[in-house]
């Protein structure tokens, strides 16, 4: 049984002049439990639209989405919201921590929408998760007192407190420097692996994409598998070319 399946998914929007803009064109994708998928693409290629559809935040214009082999269109809006809260964890490029709330309160936020023991034990669950991401000593800190890397780790803890089966990371290192980004990705990869959750990373960074086991490129709304090692090699080659003095070649 697949965790998530997209079958011929399209998404288009009507433009003010009456024309239609096709953002996604016939996307087919299957994500299994414990999978690690990366999707790379340039700005405007439809990455975020795809992420919203994967996260049940948006509906396709045509095609089908299946969660646990069950078509999503059968879900009511409320069922979809609850499914999202229970099974999907989001990590955003800009962290999107709630201002005015401590790291602990931020990590607790998704548990406000849980029920039973998860709801009533939300403080201990969130504290445990912050400990796991190495922020046990910053629980009372406000987001504006945390570094970028720390904020993203709070966001990771927040995405994982409900034990999601699918983690959607939208440019998780986009706002971080290279070193911090690498450590955050290592953490995310570890946590996803330990929890058995599938991880879909949407990025334009080939190094980040390389950490995944399956790689896709989204180009003008079309999703296609790519050889990430080739892309990485090209990227490194370009980096070296920029680093060498003029007149020398790599």
């Amino acid at each position, binding site marked *: 049984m697949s965790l998530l399946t997209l079958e011929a998914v399209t998404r288009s929007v009507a433009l003010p002049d009456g024309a239609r803009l096709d953002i996604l064109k016939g996307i087919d994708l299957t994500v299994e439990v414990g999978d690690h998928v990366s999707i790379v693409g340039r700005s405007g290629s439809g990455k*975020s639209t795809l992420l*919203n559809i994967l*996260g049940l*935040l*948006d509906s396709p214009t045509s095609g089908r989405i299946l969660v646990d082999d069950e078509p999503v269109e059968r879900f009511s*809006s*409320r069922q979809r*919201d*609850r499914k*999202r*809260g*229970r099974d999907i964890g*989001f990590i*955003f490029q800009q962290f*999107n921590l*709630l201002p*005015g*709330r401590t790291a602990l*309160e931020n990590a607790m*936020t*998704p548990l*406000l*929408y*849980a*029920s*039973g*023991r*998860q*709801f*009533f034990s939300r403080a201990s*669950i969130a504290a*445990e*998760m912050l*400990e*796991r*991401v*190495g*922020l046990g000593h910053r629980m009372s800190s406000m987001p504006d007192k945390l570094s970028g890397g720390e904020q993203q780790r709070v966001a990771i803890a*927040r995405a*994982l407190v*409900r*034990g999601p089966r699918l983690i959607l990371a939208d440019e998780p290192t986009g706002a971080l420097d290279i070193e911090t980004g690498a*450590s955050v990705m*290592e*953490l995310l990869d*570890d*946590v996803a692996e*330990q*929890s*058995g*959750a599938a991880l879909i990373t949407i990025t334009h960074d080939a190094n980040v994409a390389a950490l995944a086991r399956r790689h896709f490129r989204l180009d003008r709304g079309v999703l296609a598998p790519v050889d990430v090692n080739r892309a990485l090699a090209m990227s490194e080659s370009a980096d070296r070319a920029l680093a060498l003095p003029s007149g020398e070649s790599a």
Partner: protein
Amino acid sequence: MTELEKTPVRRAPRRERGGWASGFLGAVVEAWDELRIHKTRVLLSLIGVGVAVCALTSVVGIGAIAQQAQIEQLERGSGRPATLVLSPPYNPETGQQGDPAIMAEAAATVVERYAIGYAGSTQWMQLSAQFRDGVSLVDAQAVDVDYGVMHRVQVGQGRWFVDRDELRLAPAIVVSDQFWQRLGSPDLRTHPTIQLLGEDPVTAVVVGVLPVQPFDLSLRAYILNSAYASLATPEQIAQAWPQYEFWVPPDMATELTDLIRRDVAAACGEGWQVDVNRQDYLAWEGGEDPTASIRMVLAGIAVLILILGALGLVNISLVTVRQRIREIGIRRSFGATAPRVFFAVMMESVVATVVAGVAGVVVAVAIVQNPVVRDFVAFGLTDVPPFPVEAALLGLGAATAVGALAGLLPALVAVRVKVIDAIRY
């Protein structure tokens, strides 16, 4: 980077019971957190609501006092509900007035037969009083002791008549402030006296002084019927036409009116016309309530104040929700359903306004119960009404309603937020 502990990540159970309870509690917690975090903004936005609720509650509370004052004023004049008045019988054929002695006996029988707790006769006359600077006519009213209770008579100094005053050789009198000043404003503890002229002049003792009445320059006095009987000449007594008043339960007023009329008519004999009428302010059934106008004006003011407070809150709430669109989007991405977001935003508004309402009501109680305010609104109340519970409930109800109404628009805006756009807002 801190080493990640290599223990399995906790996984949520797929289905849990008690969702509605945790859903409700979660919404309350969410609303409270929002208020706690944005306390300065909340405080500022709620000042208007608190002031509006305080004003509404105060107006209703003060209105109750003013209404009580008006009622007491009316009761001083025409008696407390229900006061039945027995007028002197007369013979329509001969035009003669009935014998006062027969009427007195009939009235006493009625009081005893129907176990009427408060009753008495009253008549008006003029007395000649010997002041230091000469003799002056005084507008006097002869009454019984019960008259004080039946008409809520209030004295500014001294006291009203008591039963033992009936036994005094020197009759007791209660005088107006002007009368007392004419006497030289004596200390009542010195038992000031005044000579009342008549067939046999008597020296009366002033036992009480009525409160100062604005623009009242008349010399007035109350004297007990028994004292007046010893003072008046036989001619005066023969010409006196006292009327009798009976204070009866309002729900029995109609029945007792007929019974008293029947009994007195039987005592007077054939051919005598006996009139018994209800004269208190509630007698005019179907007529205009004398306190209706004051209540209408106060209610109008209160509603206006509340509307202004509500408009201020709606304004601030709408602006606030627009600032919170990103946060609402983030919450939706964590599984907050649209009803939950709606409920949380509404709850936030309601929780805040209820807190403001409680504060407003507390301040209103402090204002209305303040003796200075009370005396300013209605000086000399005999029955000070307690703070009207309905005013407090109205204030809290209005605060809750304002919170719900003021929260409705922002909650609708919050629900219509497109999650994707909100996160990128």
